[in-house]
């Protein structure tokens, strides 16, 4: 235990140690937090669904959970069931073999719900395109609120996409 505490102290706090921890950013984070609270009334719960990706986008979603991005600090977290989710974060292309599972996951998510499509393949099928085995982009199967292109989109772009979806739903 001593070693663990020592290592924690050695590591320090990675979140928010960048020069941007001035008041401007603090306000922004508070603003994001307030926005999320305003829309969903609590932390934003996100359910990730891999509908057929190459696993590249998943690598960046994992990274979003590392201490550098501090997502729980701004009021969002990943949940294990669509029944607990406000938002589906979907990677593609949607394989035909996953089409039904994706639709069922969407149906299991309570209204109101948001869908963010990730990556060039989530956008329009990307390099895999549409074929006997691929439906193409997420919007071929589900109503999509925000698309985050990139191969794969880096964590900050994913975060931006999630926040865009939340703020758009506020305006709607």
């Amino acid at each position, binding site marked *: 235990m001593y*070693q*663990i505490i020592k*290592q*924690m102290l*050695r*590591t320090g706090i*990675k979140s928010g140690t960048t020069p941007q921890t001035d008041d401007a950013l603090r306000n922004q984070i508070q603003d994001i937090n307030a926005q999320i609270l305003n829309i969903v009334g609590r932390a934003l719960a996100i359910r*990730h*669904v*891999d*509908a*057929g*990706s*190459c*696993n*590249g*986008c*998943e*690598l*960046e*979603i*994992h*990274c979003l*959970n*590392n*201490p*550098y991005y501090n997502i729980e600090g701004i009021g969002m977290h*990943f949940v*294990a*069931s*669509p029944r607990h989710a406000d938002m589906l974060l979907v990677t593609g*292309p949607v*394989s*035909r*073999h*996953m*089409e*039904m*599972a994706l639709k069922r*996951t969407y149906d299991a998510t309570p209204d109101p719900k948001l869908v963010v499509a990730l990556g060039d393949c989530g956008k329009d099928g990307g*390099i*895999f*395109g*549409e*074929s*006997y*085995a*691929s439906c193409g982009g997420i919007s071929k199967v589900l109503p999509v609120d925000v698309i985050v292109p990139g*191969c*794969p989109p*880096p964590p900050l772009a994913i975060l931006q996409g999630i926040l865009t979806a939340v703020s758009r739903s506020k305006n709607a």
Partner: protein
Amino acid sequence: MRLDDFPKIFAQLPGAMPIWHGTVDATGYRALCKQVLHGGGKLLALWGEDKTQDSVSQKAAGYALHVALVTAPGLLVLSLPLAQAEVRFPDLSDLFPAADRMQRSVADMFGLRPDAESDQRKWLRHGSWPQDAYPLRKSFDPHTSYATEADAYPFVSVTGDGVHEIAVGPVHAGTIEPGHFRFSVVGEKVLRLEERLAYKHKGTEKRFEGMSLQLGAKLAGRISGDTTVAYAWAYAQAAESLCLCTPPERALWLRALLLELERIHNHLGDLGYLGNDAALAFGFAQFWILKEDLLRMNETLFSHRYLMDIIVPGGVTRDLDNAGLLHMADTLRHIEDETARLKNIYDEHAGVQDRFLTTGRVAPDLAAQLGLTGLAGRASSQAWDVRAQFPTMPYEQLDVNMVTHRNGDVAARVTMRFEEISESIRLIRLILARIPLGETLTELGKAEAGKLGIGWVEGWRGEVMVALHSGDDNRIHRLHPHDPSWQNWPVLEHAIIGNIVPDFPLINKSFNLSYSGVDL
């Protein structure tokens, strides 16, 4: 087992790796596989090919089945011509159990079937195309869309007092690729696990057909996103073999550098998750800080966090300057120090060790019998590493120390990762010190149609192979990528037997197999 021990039917393929190719008949096919097995060799990959519209021979040439076998001198590739689709090919699953799913995939995609006594269930096909349509036949239009049928897959059911089933997936609880696991359990103890994969089948192999050799490199880098460097290198080797192209030496050294960076970032991520799955969230936070540090360095030096699209046929698209070398040396020193410190913490943590030790054990004899490969194989005494046994430039000058362990449990697979990170950092230091100056990219040239090129690279998970059959105009006639997960998924079904259900995530993560790489 020397090359002279085999029939004189093999011709060496051009290129970096020791690979021989020969044509056999059905009797010779099985006899040679048996000879390889008894000589201590193993099955690497098995794939089909449709040659009915072969433009080179201008006559119907039927189909072909190809099998790649690892032997002491190198890779032996056997091609078995099949005049008609109705001719059954000899089953290999009694010799190499890993052949089972590969053969069933060939049956789904080509309608070529193994002997009737082998497992005849479908594998890659669910319900998106009918049983009598075969997507990898040349006559199949890739844009055909069929009405979806129910999958109706015949799982093996276990019966008895108190036995019940737990069905998991395809959508899992975490950020993981989709697949279905069917557990038969008594209480919390697992009696049997059966996997149903191919949910991610997105027509990757069909997509390659007709692509230019240059564009194919981009798709090869997306067969399994976490292994993009190994696939891109294997693809480049295959294309360069076909075009008789030798990349500049500096490019080869840079490729090895990228491959080791890929190994380190994947191992760091897995070590974090393995701590997390044993309820040590501290481990996740620590290792994922280090992983992010490495990815940010990649972004700075190579403009891509995962190093996609840098290895192309003919060389690499980016070079490293002196400032970059220093930056990399600094980052790696930091990662090495922190990883050593974290290893002590993992080693001394009673709760973590209690979860790791003896969990998900694959004994060495079972590993050998089932063909467990790559990192997981080396954790169970299966001493295979392409970098050490068949070293190509620059590995032939680096003297790779292969890491092996004997316990075959989660703890052994964790230790493998710690030790492979150290070895990869050592290799990168040597590369940074010795990398020759010069060009990094050369003209690929032209490939003769109707030839076979093969690439073979030790990725972080295990050996990756790309078989490339050339078509007209520098285009791809047929491409089969092989992921080590083909061998290791069936072994995971054995690793869980007798363990408790809550240990499955930990055992699964300790293998960390690819779905996309085998669903294709």
